[in-house]
C-alpha cells in the first residue's frame, strides 16, 4: 500500500525529540528518581537501605499523616468549592449587569493572584493576630466575645488558613468564568427571555452549561493549589496549633530538610502526586463526558 502523501510520518518523532528530551530530563527522570528514593530508607547523606513499600505503609499507618491529608481535603472546600460559588455569582453579575468600569473590577478581583503567596501569608498573619485588624473590627462591632488568636485556635486555625485560600483563588476563578461567559452568544439569552426565563432560570439554563469547560479548568487549578498548599501553612502556622493545620506538602519539606527522612518525604510526595493526578483526571473526565 502506498504511503500517504507528504513527508514520511515517522519523521514526526524527530520533531518531538527536543521537547521530549527537555521533558524527560527535567520531569520524567526526577519523577522516576523520586519514586525510587521513596522505596529506600535514606537520610539524604549516607547510603540508603532498601525499604520496599515500608514508607508507603507508614503513611497509611501514621495517624498524623492521615490527618494531614484530611486537612488538605478540607482545604479543597475553601480553595476550590467556595471560590467557584463566589466566582460564578460575581462573574454572572459583572457579565450580566454590564457594569461600567468592568476592567477596574476585574483587576481588583484578580489582584490577590498577582501577589506572591508568602506576602499574602505574612499580611494575613497580621490580620489574624490577637491584636490584629480582624479582632479590632469585631471589637468595634461589639463582638468582643468572638475575638481570639485565630491562628492559634484549635477550631478556627484551619478555616482561617482556608479563608486566605478562598480570598486568593476567587479572583482567578472569576476572571476565568468571565472570559467564558463573554463568549456566550447574546441570542441564547434573548431566546431564554422570550421563553419567559427570569435571571435565575437564565443563569442555570444558559450561563452555567456554557461555561462548563471553564469550570473544569478552574476546579483543576484550584484543587491542585489546595492539595499542594505549602507556603501559606509554612508562613502562618507551621502546622500548628498542635498539628491541626499540618498538610502533606509541609510534611514533605519538613521530613526531607528538617528531619533528614528523605525516603519518607519522597513517599509522601509521590502519594500526593498520585492523589492530585487522580482528582484532576476525574474532574476533566466529568467535564468532558457532560459536554459530549
Amino acid at each position, binding site marked *: 500500500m502506498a504511503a500517504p502523501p507528504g513527508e514520511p510520518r515517522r519523521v514526526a518523532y524527530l520533531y518531538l525529540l527536543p521537547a521530549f528530551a527537555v521533558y524527560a530530563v527535567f520531569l*520524567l*527522570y526526577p*519523577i*522516576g*528518581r523520586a*519514586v*525510587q*528514593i521513596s*522505596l*529506600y530508607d*535514606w*537520610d*539524604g*547523606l*549516607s*547510603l*540508603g*537501605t*532498601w525499604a520496599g513499600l515500608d514508607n508507603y505503609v507508614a503513611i497509611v499507618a501514621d495517624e498524623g499523616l492521615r490527618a494531614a491529608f484530611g486537612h488538605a481535603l478540607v482545604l479543597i472546600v475553601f480553595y476550590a468549592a467556595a471560590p467557584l460559588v463566589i466566582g460564578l455569582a460575581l462573574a454572572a453579575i459583572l457579565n450580566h449587569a454590564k457594569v461600567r468600569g468592568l476592567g477596574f473590577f476585574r483587576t481588583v478581583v484578580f489582584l490577590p493572584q498577582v501577589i506572591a503567596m508568602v506576602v499574602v501569608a505574612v499580611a494575613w*498573619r497580621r490580620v*489574624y*493576630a*490577637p*491584636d490584629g485588624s480582624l479582632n479590632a473590627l469585631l471589637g468595634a462591632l461589639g463582638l468582643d466575645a468572638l*475575638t*481570639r*488568636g*485565630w*491562628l*492559634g*485556635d*484549635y477550631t478556627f*486555625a484551619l478555616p482561617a488558613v482556608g479563608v486566605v485560600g478562598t480570598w486568593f483563588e476567587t479572583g482567578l476563578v472569576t476572571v476565568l468564568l468571565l472570559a467564558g461567559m463573554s463568549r456566550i452568544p447574546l441570542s441564547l439569552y434573548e431566546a431564554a427571555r422570550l421563553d419567559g426565563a427570569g435571571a435565575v432560570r437564565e443563569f442555570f439554563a444558559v450561563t452555567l452549561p456554557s461555561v462548563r469547560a471553564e469550570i473544569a479548568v478552574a476546579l483543576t487549578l484550584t484543587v491542585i493549589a489546595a492539595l499542594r498548599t505549602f507556603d501559606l501553612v509554612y508562613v*502562618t*502556622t*507551621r*502546622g*500548628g*496549633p*498542635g*498539628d491541626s493545620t499540618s498538610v502533606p506538602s509541609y510534611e514533605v519539606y*519538613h521530613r526531607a*530538610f*528538617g*528531619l*533528614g527522612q*528523605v*525516603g519518607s518525604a519522597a513517599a509522601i510526595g509521590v502519594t500526593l502526586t498520585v492523589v492530585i493526578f487522580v482528582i484532576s483526571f476525574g474532574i476533566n473526565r466529568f467535564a*468532558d463526558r457532560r459536554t*459530549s
Partner: protein
Amino acid sequence: MTVQKRQPRGVRALALLAASAVAACAAGCAPGSSAPPAASSPQASATAVRTDAAGLGNVTLTVWDQEVRGGQAAQMEKLNAAFQAKYPNIKLNRVSRSFDDLNTTLRLALSGNEPPDVVEANNGRSSMGAFVKAGQLRPLDAYAQAYGWKSRYPESVLRYSRYSADGKLFGEGNLYGLPQVGEVVGIFYNAAKLKKLGLRPPRTWAEFETALDRAKTGGEVPLQFGNLDKWPAVHVFGTVQGRTVPPSQIGTLAFGRKGASWTTPENVKAAEQLVSWVDKGYFAKGFNGQGYDAAWQAFGKGQGVFLIAGTWLLADLRKALGADLGFMLPPGATADAAPVATGGTGLPFAITAKSPHPDAAAAYIDFITSEDAMKVLTETGNLPVADTGEQTVADGPQREVFTAFGTVTAKDGLVPYLDYATPTFADTLGAALQDLLAKKAAPRDFLATLEKDYKTFAESNG
C-alpha cells in the same frame, strides 16, 4: 475526542518509562551511593597537626557561615580582614547565607566531592549529628589539644559540639566544632514597670511568681509571650523545668540518652506550674495565635513586665527600651541557689573531612575564637562564648547579660535545649506544648507524649 482516547496510552507509556528507569537503577544506584563510604573517621590522624599557619604555603580556604546580620556580619568581616593581614598565604573564600538557607543547602554541599573547608553546622542531631554519622566532619580533638581550646572553653559549652564517632551519642565523645558566641535563656524585665508596681527584680522563683501576680492585679501584661511559631514555649517550659527538675536529669533527657524519664513527679510539677500560669492569666492574651517576633516587639513597646527569652534579643530590645531593660538568670528556690538556665552556643565552626587543608582550617577557627576575637565580638555587640567575664562593657542590660552568661557557664549551670533530644523532638514538644497551654492535653498526657518519643529514640539508639 481523539485526544481523549489517546490519553490512557500516554499514561501507560509514562508509567512504563518510570518503571523501567527504576528497574534499571534498582541495583546500581541506591540513593547516596555516589556519596563516599562513611570515612573510617580520620581519628585525629597519626600525622601530627601543624599550628604554624604562616608556614603552610599558599592555601585557599572556602568558609560557609551564616553571619549575615548586623553585629554578626560586622565581627566576621573584621576578623576575616585581620586573619588575611596576619596570614597572607591563606586566602579566604567566604560564602555567607542566612541561617535557613545554610541549613537547607549544607546537606547537599557536604555530600559533594569538593565540600567547603570550614562550615558552620547547627548543633542538633539532624544537622551536625547526621554529618558526623555520614563521616563528613573531622574530629577536632587533636587541634583542641594543640591550641588549648579545652582550657579556655568550659566543658558545659564544648559538649554542645560533641558526638560519638558514629553520630549516635550527643553531648559526649569527639569534638566536631567550636562556637564563637554563647546564648542563654533568661528573664528580660521592664525596670520602669517594676518600679511603678513597687517591685524589685525577683531574687527567688517564689518572688518571681509573686511579681507576676502583682503585675496582673496592677493591670499589666505579666509575661509577654507569642507561641504561634510553636518553639517559643520550649524556652518557657525549659525555664520552669529548670526550677523543679535536677539539671543532670534535664541533660540526660535533652541529649536523648537512656536513663531518665519525662513522667517523674518533678516534670509533672513543672507542667502543672506552666498550666497554672495560663489559668491565672499571666501570659499575654491569645498567645498561641501571636507570632514570636510580634510578641517581643510588643514587649519592646512597653507591653509586658517580663519576657522569658534568649540573649539573642538583647540588641533589639535595648534599642527599644534603652535603660529600662533589665536581664537576669531565672532565679532559684533560694537567692543563693546554683544557677540553672537553658542555653547553648551559636553555631559551631567545623572542618569537613574532605578538606585538603585541615591545618589551615583549624588555624582559622582558632583565630576567630581567640582572646582577641572575643574582644572584637564584644565590640560588635555579640556575646562571646569564652572569656565572657573579662570583657569590658557599659553598665546596664549588656553588662547584665554578660554577667549572667559568665556566671552560669562558670558554675556549669547551662542545660541543653530540650528539642535536641531526638530528631523529631522539636515537633513533638512544640505541638505538645501548644496542646498543653490550650488545655487540650492534661499535664500527664503531655508528658506521656514526650516520654513516648524520647523512649522510642533512646531505646533504638542503643
